[in-house]
């Protein structure tokens, strides 16, 4: 299987959210059912953001036009499936990993330790977790898997399959990239100056490519996505700890060896004469000269 990609063409998206629902029903992700407990964003973007059971959200951003209407940017919030996926790099348990065949970033719930490092590492603020609570028991990650089960069974991901206007496409990444560039050319011809492809090179190349119709700010995407430099510290911290631990144990070992056979005569202090006396011999080892200011 060649490297795959999901391509999202924001200029074709009608923001119906069919993809959000298809994602939920295929992956059997629950939605709130307690009466009126659903979160409302105050806009059409609902739920307001990704959450433990929501892997995909269509984002809405509107900028008033001079005359009538708005520049209405529909974005696709969800895993970008980076080539250089920092979530995979930081995952301590091997839970978050790359599907070698397709390039998608997938996870194995059974291996998740709930450390949530992948969220800290993600430049797109994507991974979310089940069971996040004080106990911390059984926290498990959730995010888009590009419906890897479907892909492996020759179907497009659920979101792509359901997309009526054809805003979502799925196929070989090269092919998707080509279509994306063609779409951008067309949009530029139509006067959408800011139109661009997003994801060609970001994070080593994303496996969810985006055709942006309006300026990037309207999509809430980072211009130059990068993982926090602090997370790079993990790279040097562990070797240092390893070396340090070995050195420390070695040093202490030598110290121990040099101390073997150490013996100290028992002492007592004569508080009246201010003498330190060897208990066994009764000799005064040392006199504390209080007048001289000794203590």
């Amino acid at each position: 299987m060649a490297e795959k990609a999901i391509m999202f063409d924001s200029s074709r998206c009608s923001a119906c959210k069919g993809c959000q629902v298809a994602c939920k029903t295929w992956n059997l992700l629950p939605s709130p059912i307690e009466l009126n407990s659903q979160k409302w964003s105050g806009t059409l973007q609902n739920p307001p953001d990704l959450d433990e059971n929501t892997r995909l959200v269509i984002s809405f951003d509107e900028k008033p036009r001079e005359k009538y209407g708005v520049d209405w940017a529909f974005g696709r919030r969800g895993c970008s499936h980076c080539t250089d996926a920092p979530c995979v790099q930081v995952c301590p348990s091997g839970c978050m990993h790359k599907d070698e065949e397709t390039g998608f970033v997938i996870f194995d719930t059974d291996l998740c330790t709930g450390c949530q490092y992948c969220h800290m590492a993600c430049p797109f603020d994507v991974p979310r977790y089940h069971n996040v609570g004080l106990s911390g028991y059984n926290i498990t990650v959730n995010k888009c898997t590009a419906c890897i089960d479907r892909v492996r069974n020759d179907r497009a991901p659920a979101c792509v399959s359901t997309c009526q206007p054809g805003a979502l496409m799925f196929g070989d990444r090269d092919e998707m990239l080509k279509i994306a560039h063609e779409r951008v050319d067309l949009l530029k011809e139509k006067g959408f100056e800011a139109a661009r492809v997003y994801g060609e090179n970001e994070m080593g190349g994303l496996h969810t490519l985006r055709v942006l119709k309006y300026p990037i700010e309207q999509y809430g995407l980072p211009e130059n996505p990068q993982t926090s430099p602090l997370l790079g510290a993990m790279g040097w911290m562990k070797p240092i700890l390893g070396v340090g631990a070995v050195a420390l144990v070695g040093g202490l070992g030598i110290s121990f060896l040099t101390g073997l056979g150490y013996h100290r005569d028992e002492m007592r202090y004569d508080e009246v004469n201010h003498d330190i006396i060897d208990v066994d011999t009764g000799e005064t080892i040392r006199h504390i000269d209080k007048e001289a200011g000794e203590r």
Partner: protein
Amino acid sequence: MTGHYCDFKNADVILTSGSNNLENHPVSSKWVQRALDAGATWIVVDPRFTRTASQADIYCPIRPGTDIAFYGGMINYIIEKDLWQHEYVEHYTNATFIMDEGYSFDPETGFFSGWDESKKAYDKHTWHYQVESESEWDTSEGGSFAWVKDPGVPEFTPPKVQVARKDPTMQDPQCVWQLMKKHYSRYTIEKVCETCGMDEDTLIQVYEAYASTGAPEKAGTILYALGQTQHTYGTNNTRIMTLVQLLLGNVGVAGGGLNALRGEPNVQGATDMAMLVFDFPGYLRWPNVSESPNLRAWCESQTYYGGFYTNKPKFMVSALKEWFGEHATVENDYGYDWLPKIPKNGGDYTTMGTFHLMDAGTMKGYFAWGQNPVVSDPNSAFNRRAMANLEWLVVADWVETATASFWRAPDMKPEDIQTEVYFLPAALIYEKSGTIANSGRWLQWRYKAVEPVGEAKPDYEIADMLWTKIVELYKAEGGPSAESILNVKWDYYVDGKIDPRPVAWAFNGYKVASSDMKSAKMDLLPAFAQLKADGSTACAIWIYGGYYNNSDAPLDPAAQPVGRREHDDPGELGLYPKWAFSWPANRRIIYNRASADANGKPWNPKRVLVEWNGTEWATRNDVPDFVFQTANADGTNTPVAPNDNAFFMKPEQHANFISYGLADAALPEHYEPFESPTKNTFNALQNSPLMKFADHPSAKKGDFGEFPIVATTYSITEHWQTGAQTRMCPALNEIAPRQFIEMSMELAEEKGIKNGDEVIVWNNRGEVRLNALVTARFRPLTVNGETIHQVGMIHHWDWTNMFSTGEVVNDLTPNVGDPNSFIPEFKAFLVDVKKA
């Protein structure tokens, strides 16, 4: 729809007006996008900037309820700039026909000729053509209408064939063309903008773009929905769009047509099936006391002198034969008298009227089959209170709808309500089988996948149980006109169990003598052309003829035309003639004769539906919707050379600009909504003179002084109708959790409302609380020099449901309607708004 969904891809220009097709008919997005890919232009005209508008090339705002002004201006523009399709108009429409001397329209009064103030109705005799000559049907042996004399055909006097006077030069001042031209000359750009509220540049841009489809090879399609129809002049809204399409030569061509995007999965089927006061299955007319008190009168009043509807007696007799079976004989008029006759005040029995009847105590029992009028009908609070007068109510549905629980609405006291309410749990769509008709008239088969949950049952089973019990009661106890009930044919069983397949046989039609439903041995008719008026054929609904015609496997829908799943696409126009079945006769684009010129040559060689090659109609990518050949006695066919009879469902076989068909106008004329923020400047009447139910005390008209904000209601893509069906899906509540009212930033600032605030919206009929969604997608408009604010509300909530509840927005909408269709005016009314 004259076309179908896949056909949108063939359009050069798409005009969405009175519809939010991407949101409410999302599959349209696929086909509109295909058109755009091929270089089409897309125009969206809507009071607010919708998700649909966000994708369009041109967006034009409009004040709710001013579409006739908008399109009247377009007609004027097209005629003035000479952008109309000359050959099409001259040959296929009634533009050349000369109207009665007395026909006129007077803007000084706002009335067409024939207004009778005492009857409050039009005498429409001046809305007809001048007759040049009259002749009789040839009913002699071997003649075209010999069947009239066949034994078994009910006796009736055939209509006189009328030939209208015409002026091919279209210069006669009384010819349709000149009258129409004069009528719309008043609809100037300036006046349209003052009334509708958009600026002139935008309006001209729209007119120019759409009028470009007047070029013969170009196709333009109009997508509309309830935004056009839900007005007190809704039928005329749809008519004026037809006028535009005819002027531009867009009807009957691939990528053209007038496409009503219908809102319910099988509303097309329900309309086909005549679940309407005045209708009989297959768009025939239900017997009524004035025109058709008996079968003879029905045949005489309904049968057209020309065109395809000369065949109506065949359809009616076959339908009666299906209705009463062996009890229907020529001697008893095929049981015609047993059917109820619609009384003179038939309009009072349409939905809004039924609530008036409940209020008055006339109506005592009520069935709601998968419909939720307590939320979906206007002036809901009045409706709820009226329902409390019912003795009994039966609701068949999936969930406890607001209609089922009207007695425990927040403003009702259950203890005081004596209505007995039955709730019957219904099966889901995939828990039963049957036929469904989409907006493009495709009949498709649904296969049962699982058994219903619990005790839920398919509606056909519920109907059968109830009917069987009623028949049992009448057999045991008798009753007035019991024979109307006891003579009904009700034998739709397979292996003793009620089943949709025998009903499908009845839809398709069969030869009575050689068929036996009981043993499932059916002699199904190939098509409706084989129907007879002599009682030898039975057919419940003639337009479905041919959809289930394989007599070899009557029990297997997959072996029937309705069950076809092949992808052949002759002409690559997306016609898919071997996928399911499209009524009538599997025609995918109706009026397709008009896709070719007077000589039968297609206007656009790339979009060929039918083509005359000089000797015959050799290319028939679609099933011809005209007489393209005649059958000879020896079984051969003789091709019929191209003629101008492109609209053969009309007696004159030409499309109508001026028509006598509607009650309230011969040509669409602008009137203001029942509740309007301004004065009608096009004529002296403020409202349509025939607006229905405006005088009923419950309508409680509000005036602009008191309620200065124009309101409209609509759906969003995430929910559907009253929400009973979508609020039961947690995923849908999650993506659209709250009811909201959309308003402009300007109005919000004026009222001190911030996004998300709870606001109170009220008028004389009610008050609701909703959350504000403040957006630049709504803008105030300047109408006749004044700034008019508009708000829009979604209507998918009520007090029921265990996941998501809200308020009933239709408490605010006026229960007034159109005199032709009796549709309520949901789309334009007045309210005021304040922060809660």
